[in-house]
């Protein structure tokens, strides 16, 4: 089975739909499901945040987005990190 990947913008109180905090992706494959967050280390890493939200944790909002928008958010985070260095 080919991997199916869904992307989600993560929005908290100090971010917005236009400027999400970061992106999570949910990868579904023959091996099962994995949630990954684009992290402060500029890498994709396992994260329980989306799972928590599905179980009533309202600290973060997650909005499903297209892959192209996810790539734009990741590029923005990378550029912001580069500027800080």
């Amino acid at each position, binding site marked *: 089975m080919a991997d199916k990947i869904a992307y989600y913008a993560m929005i908290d109180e100090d971010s917005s739909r236009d400027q999400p905090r970061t992106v999570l992706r949910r990868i579904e494959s023959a091996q*099962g499901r994995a949630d990954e967050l684009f992290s402060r280390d500029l890498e994709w890493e396992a994260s329980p945040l989306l799972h928590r939200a599905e179980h009533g944790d309202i600290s973060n909002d997650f909005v499903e987005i297209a892959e192209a928008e996810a790539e734009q958010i990741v590029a923005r985070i990378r550029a912001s990190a580069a500027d800080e260095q």
Partner: protein
Amino acid sequence: MAIDSGDADAPDAAPAPARSVEGHDPPERGEPEHGHPADAPIPRGQQIAEHVRYRETVEASYQSAEARDAWAAAAPALRAEWEAHKQRYPDREHAPSTTLPDGGWVGDGNRRLSPEQNAEAAKCAADLRDEAIERIGPAMERVEAADPGRRLAGQEHMLKGEDRLKEKMADELRAPGVTVRHALDKIADGVRFTLEYQAEDYAEGVLADVGRITAEGFQLIKLKNLWHAEQYKGVNSQWRVPETGTRCEVQFHTAESLEAKELTHEAYERIRGGTSSPAEDSELEDFQRRANGLLVIPPGTDRIRDFPE
């Protein structure tokens, strides 16, 4: 939504002599109530409105009884299923959380905090404990006392364990740009309460209690109506104590949704821990979905709006 009881409840179809629904001694289902003084005519519009309210109350009672019965019938099989799952997939050993010699912290799933982050989290946990005991807990008990028709459930779990707080902080800190202070601020369930209602009183009760908590001086930060979610049912809210900025969480459940949450909590924890196999994850998700799928949305719940909308 569940409150819609059909065309028969439309004002045009309402019989004229309907009267008060406040007394809980209603006539037969669908019949108007008679017997008010003949010299005190009730305006037609009021009669219709009262009749509609009465019909809604009756419908709500019927729906709630059906929901209770459906859950009560299904719950034993779900519990047995969960026990069988645990036999098939024994829980793994959890590595104990550790404070490192340099003051840092390592928790479940190899989550880590630096010495500074760990010190901040420990101080936050201590402050939360003090404020929960001195300010937030007593206020919530006053809210509870305002209506004997529902109760605060699980008050012994009012405080999130310090290691769970640190785990959550570590998870939040992995997102870009999140500071320690920001991560701690986002964790509203360091102090949490659950109000439990009968399904037929749920919507009115939640709306009234949101008002009561506000009247206690708390500021509503966020409220989510999650009754249409797949794996969790209820209303969850975050509040701020204005004087200190401390946050707390209040969950609003029916007896059935609270039981479903408790029944599926271990399944949730297994997935969250990140160490269950993909095959087990799939079963766990299916279990949670089916358990919550058995819950009937309480009548009138669509009136509970998200905040901010």
